[in-house]
């Protein structure tokens, strides 16, 4: 699935850095700054919410746009949803009902100068 998302985004002029391990993602963002992060909530070894808390704990990344693209429907997020306010999530997309093209539009809308 990662290859498909990467393929669609790259075909539309974006450069994607795909990371499986949340810790690697933090290191990677530190080494090579990015314009936006797309994250799943279910990650191996660590939840996506934990990853986002760590990301937001660094002053440099407090305003970095973040989009959740997950297999967890919003209605099931429950308590975690309350913390989304603090985590400053820009958009929440449920994988089963979000075509890749809609995810792309959401990313481009976040990156547009009007959103800045």
């Amino acid at each position: 699935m990662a290859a498909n998302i990467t393929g669609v985004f790259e075909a539309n002029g974006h450069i994607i850095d795909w990371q499986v391990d949340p810790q690697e993602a933090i290191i990677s963002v530190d080494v090579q700054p990015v314009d936006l992060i797309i994250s799943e909530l279910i990650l191996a070894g660590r939840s996506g919410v934990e990853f986002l808390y760590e990301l937001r704990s660094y002053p440099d990344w407090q305003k970095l746009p973040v989009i959740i693209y997950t297999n967890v429907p919003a209605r099931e997020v429950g308590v975690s949803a309350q913390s989304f306010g603090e985590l400053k999530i820009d958009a929440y997309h449920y994988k089963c009902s979000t075509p890749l093209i809609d995810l792309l539009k959401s990313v481009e809308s976040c990156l547009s100068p009007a959103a800045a």
Partner: protein
Amino acid sequence: MNRKPNRHLAATQLAEQKALLIALSDDLTLPLLQIKTSLEFLENQKYSKEAVAQQSRVMAMSADTGLQLAEAYRLVLHSDKLHDLPLEPVSIGAVLEEVAHELSKYAHEYATELHVDVQGKLTPVLAHQPSLMAALQCLSASLIRAQAAQTQQKDYHIILGAHRSGNNLVAAGVFTNIHGLSDRTLRAARSLVGHARQPLPALPAGAASGVLIADMLCSAMWQPLRAAAHKNMSGLAVGVPASKQLRFV
């Protein structure tokens, strides 16, 4: 007098089945999502010949993943009847070779090499061969996916191994470099299944139900899966009793 415990047992079994069905529905979503995004990718690439060739392989693999899970789940649904199924002497080495053969293409897609390693001369074990094969196949497929998703490497290795264990048992299982699989996490997963999205936190999404289905099949036959080690790799194995009948042949 016996009615109450029976009803309690039936309710427990029903709750277990429901919990597993919830986990399975979560994990079945992933291969379907893979197929869905592959089709979207193809549309984006205007169905170019190269993209179609590549994606059809990926979609076939996703369909296989889903079908494997559904097939193993069907066996679990009938696992209460496993006690009535004929247990026969089975060569564990042959079963592992067959599982490795069945999964070789699948493993290749995940840059994984499967090795079969049987330590010493093992006597045949007493098992219901289709169930043992389904359990090992389901477990292997889940761990292939999990290992490839847990770390980014050029290639991966998995051992389908068997060795003599105590009490006239042969331990047969799947051994990898995945971190975080232990008896404790397995116990926790059994109680979390159906209640948590990720009953095995060490494994990525989509891999837990395969492990839990294998666990239920093994439990129904002999005993649940447990953490084990083989050739410096850690993994999950089931203890299968050696066939006493053939020891004298």
